[in-house]
């Protein structure tokens, strides 16, 4: 408290001082994401997003089978509650760690930074992050990934990309999942592809069924191509 100042020099009540600033609210998240990127520079990191139940965990299990003997994959899987998904993956022989977000609707980079200290990544070529089932909130949080892949299942309707534009804008690949159900549903692959490209003209699109093993070769090929690209880029540095 400044007692030496005469009262008369004080600014009258109700006065304010104004600061014009530009303070990014996600700065802390982006900063940590960048740290993760540096730490995992030799591993391909893929952030897998979708609505609840579009088939992320099932795809991870299948991917584990198909990569066996080719590449080593690990998975960080996040859910609001329970470790069920990690248990499912471990049963399939995948090196997996559960992140329980405690009801939070998305993963933040800080959670990933902590998790990569707890999971053994020795020899891992590809690290998948299975995000919380939610097409909104996870789209705003950079997790230090190289690519974002978004699943949209045939049961969800083909009009979703433009309803959740940020997710599709920030994804490099859209996987149309549960293709085996197509005969029973009013879902058009062309329509959903067009909808997604209206938001993001550069998005890759693949059609898969984890249940019937459809289109998974192309998915595996996509992963291998991206891994090679990342390794080559590292070599030129």
């Amino acid at each position, binding site marked *: *408290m*400044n007692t030496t100042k005469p009262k008369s020099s*004080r*600014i009258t*009540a*109700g*006065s*304010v*001082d*104004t*600061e*014009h*600033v*530009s*303070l*990014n*609210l*996600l*700065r*802390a998240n982006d900063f940590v994401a960048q740290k993760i990127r540096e730490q995992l520079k030799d591993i391909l990191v893929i952030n897998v997003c979708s609505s609840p139940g579009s088939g992320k965990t099932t795809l991870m299990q299948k991917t584990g089978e198909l990569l066996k003997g080719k590449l080593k994959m690990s998975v960080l899987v996040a859910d609001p509650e329970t470790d069920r998904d990690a248990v499912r993956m471990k049963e399939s022989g995948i090196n997996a760690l559960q992140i329980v977000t405690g009801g*939070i*609707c*998305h993963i933040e980079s800080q959670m990933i930074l902590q998790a990569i200290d707890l999971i053994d990544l020795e020899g891992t070529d590809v690290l998948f992050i299975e995000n919380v089932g*939610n097409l*909104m*909130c996870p*789209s*705003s949080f950079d997790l230090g990934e190289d690519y974002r892949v978004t699943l949209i299942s045939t049961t969800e309707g083909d009009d979703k990309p*433009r*309803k959740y*534009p*940020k997710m599709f*804008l920030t994804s490099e690949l859209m996987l149309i999942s549960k293709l085996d159900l197509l005969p029973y549903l009013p879902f058009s692959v062309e329509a959903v592809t067009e909808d997604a*490209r*209206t*938001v*993001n*003209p*550069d998005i890759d699109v693949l059609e898969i069924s984890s249940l019937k093993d459809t289109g998974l070769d192309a998915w595996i090929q996509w992963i291998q191509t991206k891994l090679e690209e990342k390794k080559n880029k590292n070599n030129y540095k």
Partner: protein
Amino acid sequence: MHEIFLIRNTFERIEEEFPEKFERVSEIHLKIGLLSNVQPILLTNAFKAFVMEFPQYYNTKLIIDTLPVIISCKCGAKTKVKMNRFVCERCKDPCRNIIQGEELFINEIKFKNKNEYDET
């Protein structure tokens, strides 16, 4: 859905940036792009819930300015995106060069003058 998180972040950012006077914050202006997935009404509600917990901020005002999405095409035209259709109005080309709409930041903060405190 993470509005409470954003409000907490808002106060943390202000504390970080203005450690000497953050407690006297009286008005916070946020710029929020339509692509940030933040609903102003939910944010306002989260803010109300926050100040209930921290009564020292009871008189602090939150002012939210929402910004539409604007893309800038190679042809030079700028288009306000409607219905999430990322297509140039002039040449009809697809375009994802977003120049506005992803904002999520504090652009102005007002602080009450310290002397008002000294008086009491």
